């Protein structure tokens, strides 16, 4: 049932041996700071719960709190250590490649994934950066095809993200021209607007 198509197997451009671009080195620090903030919030909630249980009238509850304390501390310590160390393991295993016709993004430590989005299917692109991202001079680039399942490449340098977005927009426009289109039909429009949208958005400028 298997028919070989017009392109010989070996000449098909492969996506296996590529030079993956790493994410920005500061991204690890950014994720760790984010994790630290979360850890502090959870710790504060835990401490508040403990002091409430101790301050309560019921002596049994106070004793229960004391009995639970070592377990809670151990679990909290484990959680804190893992979320603080995790970025060091996970970030070097992420990476992206921009080719002439598509953009690839790989991610995952145990469950790995490599996803490719061809430029001629991209509807629009988006750059966003949160408070922490901006503090570290980082930005996230999203690429949306129709339907679900685009990229969200987190932890790019702000200037890299902008350059990438411009390149992607150029590629979208180059790929979107189709023979037989009179220029009024839908496909070129998203591409044109994709170029315009992030520029007018505040996120791209503030970083």
């Amino acid at each position: 049932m298997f028919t070989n198509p017009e392109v010989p197997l070996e000449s098909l451009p492969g996506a296996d041996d590529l030079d993956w671009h790493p994410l920005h080195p500061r991204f690890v620090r950014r994720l760790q700071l984010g994790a630290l903030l979360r850890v502090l919030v959870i710790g504060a909630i835990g401490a508040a719960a403990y002091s409430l249980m101790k301050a309560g009238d019921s002596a049994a509850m106070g004793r229960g709190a004391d009995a639970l304390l070592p377990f809670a501390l151990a679990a909290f310590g484990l959680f804190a250590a893992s979320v603080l160390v995790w970025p060091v393991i996970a970030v070097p295993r992420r990476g992206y490649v921009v080719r002439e016709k598509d953009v690839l993004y790989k991610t995952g430590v145990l469950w790995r994934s490599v996803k490719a989005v061809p430029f001629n299917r991209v509807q629009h692109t988006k750059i966003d950066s949160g408070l922490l991202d901006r503090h570290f001079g980082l930005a996230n680039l999203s690429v949306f095809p129709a339907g679900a399942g685009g990229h969200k490449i987190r932890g790019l340098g702000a200037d890299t993200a902008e350059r990438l977005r411009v390149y992607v927009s150029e590629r979208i426009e180059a790929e979107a021209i189709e023979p037989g289109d009179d220029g009024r039909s839908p496909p070129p429009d998203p591409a044109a607007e994709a170029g315009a949208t992030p520029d007018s958005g505040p996120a791209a400028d503030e970083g």
Partner: protein
Amino acid sequence: MSPSESGAWRRTSPFAILFFIGRTIKSFTRSLIQLIATFGALAVLIERNPQVALAIPVGIAAIVAAGVLQYWFFRFRIEEDRIHIHQGVVRRTALDLPFDRVQGINVERSLIDRILGLVTVSLDTAGSATAEGQLPSVTSELADDLRTRIRAHRPAKVADDIGAGDVPAAPADGVARESSARADSAGQVLLELGAGDIVRIGLANRNLVVAAAFLGIFGQSVDFAADTLRPILESAGDAFAGAGVLVQALVVTGFVLLGLAIVLLGALLRYHGFTLWREGTAYRTRAGLLTQREVVVETRKIQQLTLSHNLILRLFRRHRLRALPAALLPNQGGADTPGLQLAEVLEVPLLQGPEAEDLRTRLFGREGGALSLLPRSPGFRRVSPHYIRALTLRISVTTAFVALPFLIPLLQSNAGTHLADAVQGLLGETPLLGAGSPGTVALGVFLWWLVVIPPAALIGWVRWRRQGYLHDGDGLASRSGFVGRKVDAFLFRKAQSVEVTQSPLQSRKDLATLHVRLACGQVVVPYLDLGEASWLRDHILYRVESSRRRWH
């Protein structure tokens, strides 16, 4: 008046007031909870202060008035290449819709519409909300006129990729083909469903199967109904031995008949007179007993074909075919703004295998000739048997977790003590296994997990047998299912993104899962050989990136 009069602002027929009233009521009662809350509040108010009841006719009058006003302010104007729709009483909106933005025209005719010869036209667009492009209660001539205008306006050269061609045809050829397509655009009926088919659709209704299972499990609870009936029957037909059983049987039969009647009526209402026909480059279906719905889908808009059958359809040797267009086209302004709209799915509720294959070749054209929608096709290849292991693990662990809230109290009670005693009898005294101790609970959960493994493995094996894939140079068909079966087929050039994932188990065995995302959803082929998955990914990317044809 001529239906195609250009340039004049017009209102629809006054019967559209009904449509607007319906829409107002619908928008008030977006959710059932809202409806219940409203009626509850009203009931309480009326109970406290009966004069509030006067508000009801006032409210009804207000809704009717709103309908009339909306009708009055709804105007449209058809021009050469576009349609303008102005509407809104307080918040005026003006829609300017160029015809080449229109993805499809769907027509719905309610019972009243049909008596009066009117239709409600919906213009599917890739951008705006659906409700904006609706023309309620216009004459069917106007709908036909609109359809011909929109078709005529489609860029002529694009039209040639609608045809079955793989290779872009030379212009002259394209024009010739286009004109020949025009010639038979009167319509070529491909499929009609008769009364027997409607009965089959009704019987295959999934709710009926579920209800039957439900009745089987909770059959005991019909006793209460039998209890209420018994006096009547006993007084009528005197007492004879086994009357109770008879009554119960009668009640069960009654329930079954009622369920049958409901599903058959449902199928009749929805699919009566189902007709599928080709019109130029589009496929149209029309069905419905009271409200007649018409769906038109252009061939090139179709992203994926899904053929499925459940247990009952399998007995009938029939299938259900759905042709999915791009489900959610993001608004042109950006994905964050609302305005995603659902395109109509072309559905053939019942057809035979050869008919399905015939439709596939029509819809996919010259491409994907080696594909098959039939689950029994010998072309399908199995995925790696390691899939069974992964499924077994997944199902058994999930089941164990779901059972935890029931297992833990059970193990802390007497049952746990018995278990601990039994194990200690085998292994000798162990301090870990006190009554209700964590050791006992852990042991109990572990044993439960062991018990769950064989059925999970059986489910995994059945699902592995159902799983399969089949591809040629143009497209891929993926088969899956457990009780029923489903085949998803698509052409490579319609893909939006491709992803290859590997779980830890897959990494060890050099296997991978291929996810192909289309504009209408996702097709997944699990547990492929890594090389095969990578090759498919590269090949799909090659087909997408070298394709110069529109995907929608």
